[in-house]
């Protein structure tokens, strides 16, 4: 295949700018933007990040730096994912599209942006190819895209007007029909979707997106070498685990904490869990109290070490100090950045055995899959690998190198090249598996 030199003009649109917000989606979007602008196939690339200035959205556009724009936008109707400042869609945003004349718009997310911008792009110039990377299940699931029932306890496998109404009784069955109608018809305007995981792709297919329209491309990682193993002291074992992430109930830190408390003291004292977490103070008082009650005795016994929050660029250095990374999320996840970072650093990962986690971590190859929410199984698994003489070395060798940002950008440009706008053509050759083959570890 050949990519014509310097033809594409790519506008990357993201629901946030990583200067102000550090979610995985906006980081992935920004990294791609930076690789697009360096790529020979790209004439010009821009980044448009939505910004929240803590006031009612004004719809104003502004420059962050060269080729990077900020758009003060928000959502007025989360049910129908409708932008708060709709007037700016057909005025400022349309002006931006007219002025930049992109050939491709690569949108990351619709959250915080609304869906209307997709229509305006096609209205300004129907020949602009629009691609969207799906970062979680928000179109499918009204409950913040988590696909977890609103009781917070039950995982959800399927959206339907009737079932969604049960989670949100104040919204009628018909309201959910309207919600899907507006998502589907706006998604009709999109030339192709990118999903960082096969699991998420399948959820969107189950929901109604044609399989031929969704391609799996894993998020790229920095092209860094594997981290050296943690230096072991005399009599030390591979017993240090790291939790990295938000302390929301869905990230599931409480699961291994509960498990550790259930272990007998001798086994418990053989384990250290570093908690690199943020935003516990933003959680509900119930969850806060619950986690704190679990943390306190474990910290006193030296089993848990509270490390506090971290910036994305600090993640790598913090991983140096642990042997294992734990991802005990109680929701499906998509492609958690922390798994890719752990693999990049050469750290085997213990994950819940569902969704994107089960897809990215191969059991007993590059990590372990543990029953989601099963705290005693989590503790037993941690105790077992901590006591094992060879588990760490074996699993570490099983880790493949994640796709780099450059590979990720190239994979996207291949996708864009093969699927021109307005065509019914489906690239069956460029299936999810061929695109992602060799770009990261796969489950056999």
């Amino acid at each position: 295949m050949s990519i014509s030199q310097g033809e594409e003009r790519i506008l990357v649109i993201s629901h946030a700018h990583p200067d102000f917000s550090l979610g995985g989606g906006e980081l992935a979007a920004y990294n791609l933007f930076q690789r697009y602008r360096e790529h020979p196939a790209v004439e010009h690339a821009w980044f448009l990040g939505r910004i929240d200035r803590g006031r009612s959205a004004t719809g104003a556009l502004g420059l962050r730096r060269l080729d990077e724009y900020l758009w003060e936008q928000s959502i007025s109707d989360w049910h129908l994912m409708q932008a708060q400042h709709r007037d700016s869609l057909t005025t400022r945003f349309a002006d931006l599209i007219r002025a930049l004349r992109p050939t491709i718009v690569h949108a990351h997310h619709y959250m915080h942006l609304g869906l209307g911008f997709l229509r305006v792009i096609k209205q300004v110039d129907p020949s602009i190819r629009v691609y969207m990377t799906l970062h979680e299940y928000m179109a499918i699931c009204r409950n913040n895209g988590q696909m977890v029932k609103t009781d917070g306890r039950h995982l959800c496998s399927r959206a339907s007007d009737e079932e969604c109404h049960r989670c949100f009784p104040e919204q009628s069955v018909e309201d959910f029909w309207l919600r899907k109608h507006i998502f589907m018809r706006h998604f009709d305007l999109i030339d192709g979707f990118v999903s960082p995981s096969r699991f998420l792709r399948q959820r969107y297919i189950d929901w109604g997106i044609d399989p031929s329209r969704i391609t799996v491309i894993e998020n790229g990682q920095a092209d860094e070498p594997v981290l050296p193993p943690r230096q072991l002291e005399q009599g030390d074992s591979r017993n240090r685990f790291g939790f990295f992430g938000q302390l929301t109930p869905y990230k599931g830190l409480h699961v291994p904490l509960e498990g550790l408390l259930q272990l007998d003291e001798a086994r418990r004292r053989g384990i250290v869990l570093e908690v690199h977490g943020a935003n516990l103070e933003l959680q509900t008082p119930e969850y806060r109290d619950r986690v704190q009650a679990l943390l306190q005795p474990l910290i006193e016994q030296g089993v848990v070490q509270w490390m506090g929050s971290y910036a994305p660029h600090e993640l790598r250095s913090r991983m140096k100090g642990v042997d294992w990374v734990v991802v005990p999320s109680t929701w499906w996840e998509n492609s958690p950045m922390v798994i890719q970072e752990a693999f990049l650093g050469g750290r085997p990962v213990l994950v819940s055995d569902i969704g994107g986690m089960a897809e990215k971590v191969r059991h007993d190859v590059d990590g372990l899959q543990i029953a989601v929410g099963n705290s005693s199984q989590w503790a037993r698994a941690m105790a077992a690998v901590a006591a094992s003489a060879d588990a760490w070395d074996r699993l570490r060798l099983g880790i493949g190198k994640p796709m780099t940002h450059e590979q990720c950008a190239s994979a996207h440009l291949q996708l864009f090249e093969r699927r021109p706008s307005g065509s019914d053509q489906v690239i069956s050759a460029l299936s999810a598996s061929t695109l992602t083959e060799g770009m990261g570890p796969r489950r056999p």
Partner: protein
Amino acid sequence: MPLAELVAAGTHSRKNQPPRAETCEGQQHQAKLPTEMRMNMFDRWAKRGRSAVSRPLRADPHISPVNVVLDDGLPGSLRIDRAIRLGDWRIVAGWSTGAIELAIRAADGGVAGTAFATPRLDVAAHLGVACGDGLGFVLVAPAKQGEAELLCGKAGRQVVHAIRTEPTALLDANALALMMPALGWLASRRTPFSQEWIDLVKAIPVGDAPSPVMRGMLEYAAANGGVRAGLASGWLSAPESAIVWLQDAEGGVHGLDRAFRMDREDVCTALALDMPVPLQHQPGFCVWIDGLTPGTTLDLKALHGNVIHQLAQALVVALPSDPVEAARQLFSAPADARLAERIAIMEMPVLDALIVADRHRWKTVPVRVHEVGSPMSEPRVSIIVPLYGRADFVEHHFIEFDRDPWLKRNADIIYVVDDRALIERFTTDAHMLHRLYGIPFRWIWGGANRGFAGASNLGASIATAPVLLFMNSDVFPQAPGWLPPLLDVLEQQRDIGIVAPRLVFADGSIQHAGMQFVRREELGIWINHHPFMGLDPSLDPHAHLSIVPAVTGACVAIRREDFERVAGWDDGYLIGDFEDSDLCLKLRREGLKSAYLPQVQLTHLERQSFRLLDQGPFRSQVLMYNALRHQHRWQDELEHVALESESGVVGPGVAA
């Protein structure tokens, strides 16, 4: 002077007439009603002839008591207090010091009279006796031409004096009080609710003593000042011989013969302890009243035993002019299972009047049409969508319209905002939607909530295309190209007047596949049945264009000329229901059929706007009301069409 004027004049003069001293009138005689009556027919006197009667007295009993011979042969006194002519009757009231037979001789020699003894405490006081019972008399006889004389005495009859009838304008309170038993007797002898009867009962004061055999209560009375109509409900137990009516503050008299009667277990239980006579069957009643004014009083009265009783009184509360609000109030009255029967008797006349008045007001309300984008020239179809309660559906329409090139080239789109609360938001949203979707449209605000029929008619009034497509706001096309097949039907089959597509619910099951008329005996109404509702569309026996009894109004196409010829949607229904079948039946009268086109399918989130109204009993009462109105208009047609569909005259594939 006509009787009515007489009574009116008499009533009017009550205040102005000072009591006449010589009647010795006091409050006592009013304090006690006549308890005893003596009726003597004087036929035998008439046979004996005039010669048998003595010369009249020289003294005038109109001025002072005259000497007479009493029935017991002893001398006594007699005085005439008042003498009047009331219609065809002459009434004389007075007193005597003892029992005495009385009669009136007309100029032609005929002798007649019915006399009533009345208590006269004033006379007793004047005479210095203890008891006034029987001292007074009222004598009533048919009035004939010429002078009449008062006769008295049992054997040796005596002409007392020529009767000097007062000017009729003097039928004042005193006269009414003195003559009451005779007036009640007169009323009892007239045809109830005849004009004469009404004039009489309006004039007669009510008795003070409660009737031992009658009870009644007015629980609710309401009227609308605009249409001067209202209704009352309550309960009543009275003997069959009693005549019962409602009397408004202006004297209007309204019988209960038209009333809807109901069992009232509560009333029966309460009265069973108290009443010496068997209770009336179905004591509960509801009745509508023409000519009732809010803020006045309404009386429940009964004429029984020559006495008029006031059984109950109620203040007439105001009934809102808005038919829906009025209906809400009216339907809250207690009812039994025969709701249909009651609504037809009671609520329908009132609500009909309110609805007519309400629709009439629409004509005076300014209507505003807004153009958004450049209007289409020579459209082939006008899509008319009323909006009520929520306007967010519009964007969903535009999402679909936008991907339909034929529609964008050929459809004139009209939104009828039928909800004041939506105006402000829609004014800005309309332009935003136009910028976002680029679809030109018009929207119209009719200054009042008109309901589906009124709003749709308003939209049609500004439509420019030869075909009108009426669509509920919660109907959404599923795919482009849905309009031409509907229009083709109307273009190619002139015998079809109206055509509707298949509609499916959000879950994909059938919502509309034509309508049938089905009799619901338990409710006493015909309803519009949606066959196959809730089933998989693959189970729809209609695969092609089919003639059906009727089609839904949620999405229908009709030629504009036909629509105008049948005067559009009937806006006389409450809120909305049955307008669609009504329109189909109007077209049927014109020889035009209703057709169902299953090949075209849209989604209908049915009743989403109705969720904004309350559910529960009011909703079903409204349905009942509309069903009754529908079948009053179309009784014969409903039966015919139902028979036709049973015999297969209409059905799958007939028009294919």
